[in-house]
């Protein structure tokens, strides 16, 4: 398994490099890889250089960080809630963060960090509601999450004009300043997630047994959930709600490197970055000069993937 794991890392790394190259060159203003490279290292095409630096590069960075953060956030939710389809976009966490961003816009002036703070608070409140309401049954958790999600989306729809229910934040509108905040906050969260990855392994066994081996169990769970909410909300703050990636990538990761979270978390970071970059770039080039939002493509791909997971494995992790 270790050998396969190494191979999987190398494969994802190679794909990641290719995908970054593709994302740089592809788009409405399409050039060859060589021309793009020439422009980047000091070519004379100033207009293309500006496109690369002010539009494509921030978007690539944002997609990489968002994909990684959502995937790792999803993996942490699944470990802590002990539920294989616990995903922030299904459980209402992302929608809660998104709603909070909208509401914050009414009471606070729009500043760079307003979105971030509002999203983290909104995501946190949603999680507290979810954990407070959930029953013992893993299906109850998902159903309550779905209900919360519908409620938050509905409340948001009350405030915005018809037809504009999608998040105002997206990859298409992201600025360099937003990208920097997203990158710094996201990478910080990812580093913490890698440090606490071994903790997620403990939650594979029951609470009663964990409590007698000398672990501060409630504290441990809160830490894991806090990091998961932070990662998810940070992404929602700047690129909006992106469904299903938090389920699909952790599942693929477990399939590639096994179920040890010390392996799953770093691998999901890379694979998540790759998946979202590919999806976003695909959406950008498929209907040039228009584009399809990553959220829309993810919903189209993610729905069937979720059904596949549920029909094959059931709701407990690894069942």
């Amino acid at each position: 398994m270790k050998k396969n794991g190494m191979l999987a890392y190398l494969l994802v790394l190679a794909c990641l490099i290719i995908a970054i190259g593709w994302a740089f060159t592809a788009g409405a203003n399409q050039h060859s890889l060589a021309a793009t490279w020439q422009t980047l290292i000091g070519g004379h095409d100033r207009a293309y250089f500006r496109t690369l630096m002010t539009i494509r590069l921030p978007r690539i960075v944002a997609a990489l960080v968002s994909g990684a953060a959502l995937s790792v956030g999803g993996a942490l939710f699944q470990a802590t809630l002990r539920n294989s389809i616990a995903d922030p976009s299904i459980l209402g966490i992302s929608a809660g963060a998104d709603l909070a961003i909208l509401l914050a816009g009414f009471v606070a002036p729009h500043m760079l960090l307003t979105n971030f703070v509002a999203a983290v608070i909104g995501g946190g409140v949603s999680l507290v509601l979810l954990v407070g309401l959930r029953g013992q049954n893993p299906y109850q958790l998902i159903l309550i999450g779905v209900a919360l999600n519908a409620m938050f989306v509905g409340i948001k729809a009350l405030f915005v004009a018809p037809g504009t229910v999608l998040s105002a934040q997206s990859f298409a509108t992201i600025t360099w300043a937003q990208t920097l905040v997203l990158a710094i906050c996201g990478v910080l969260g990812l580093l913490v997630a890698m440090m606490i990855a071994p903790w997620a392994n403990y939650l594979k066994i029951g609470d009663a047994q964990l409590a007698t081996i000398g672990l501060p169990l409630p504290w441990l769970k809160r830490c894991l959930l806090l990091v998961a909410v932070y990662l998810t909300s940070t992404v929602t703050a700047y690129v909006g709600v992106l469904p299903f990636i938090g389920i699909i990538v952790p599942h693929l990761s477990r399939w590639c490197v096994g179920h040890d979270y010390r392996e799953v978390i770093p691998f999901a970071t890379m694979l998540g970055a790759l998946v979202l970059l590919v999806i976003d770039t695909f959406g950008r080039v498929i209907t040039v000069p228009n584009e399809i939002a990553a959220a829309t493509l993810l919903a189209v791909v993610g729905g069937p993937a979720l059904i596949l997971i549920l029909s094959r494995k059931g709701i407990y992790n690894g069942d």
Partner: protein
Amino acid sequence: MEIDHLSYAYGKNPLPPQLNDVSFSLAPGKLTSLIGPNGSGKSTLFKLLTRQLTPTAGTITIGGQPVAQLSARAYAQKVAAVQQHNPVYDDITVQELIRFGQSAYHAPFSEQVDQAVLDEIMTLLKLTAFKKQSVRTLSGGQQQRVWLALALAQQPDYLLLDEPTTYLDLHFQYQFLQLLKTMKEKYGLTILLILHDLNQALAFSDRTLLLAQGRLVADDTPKKVVTPANLKTYFEIKSELVATSSGQQIVQLPN
């Protein structure tokens, strides 16, 4: 371990309490069995001893120190428990799971373990061959040995087990209890174990506690506790004790 006037009641106006004024002490190095009919308070007592519940009255002390005052780590170094129901939510290998038992001895969440201790336990419990397998792929008997190994990795003084043989077939029940006896002697453990099977209590324990309706009604050698009179009074069943050809006593139920 001293249990002093321990009571526990669910809810505010308890009638009757789940556990009512129970006192006993666990003799060091002995295997004590806890028996009693369903609803007699055995599991409540187990949860109080493992700090899953807080007593409404009374104290549990170890060497004069109330266990309520011990930190989770300090408690885990003294007392280990094997639960009756042991869910596993995701794939985890045997050796990874057993490592958890060492959590109380190292910096929080460090990867450090005393590998010699773990290797010895895995060898004694015949788990070495499965150490890289997922716990969920093992049989019931093997899984129960894994949970025992986890508890032993805590290097405790006391080992508490809640009906550890319930889900095992006859062969594994016998094997598991034999193993407990061996571990008791090897590590000088003080063991308290809840048992349903009165013949197992007779055969394996040094001492037997009988709970009924939340009260401790007998505390003596197994032969003096598992008597036709006690079975009639507390289990409402007629029985007789029969001596086997090897001189062992077994409970014989009426046809």
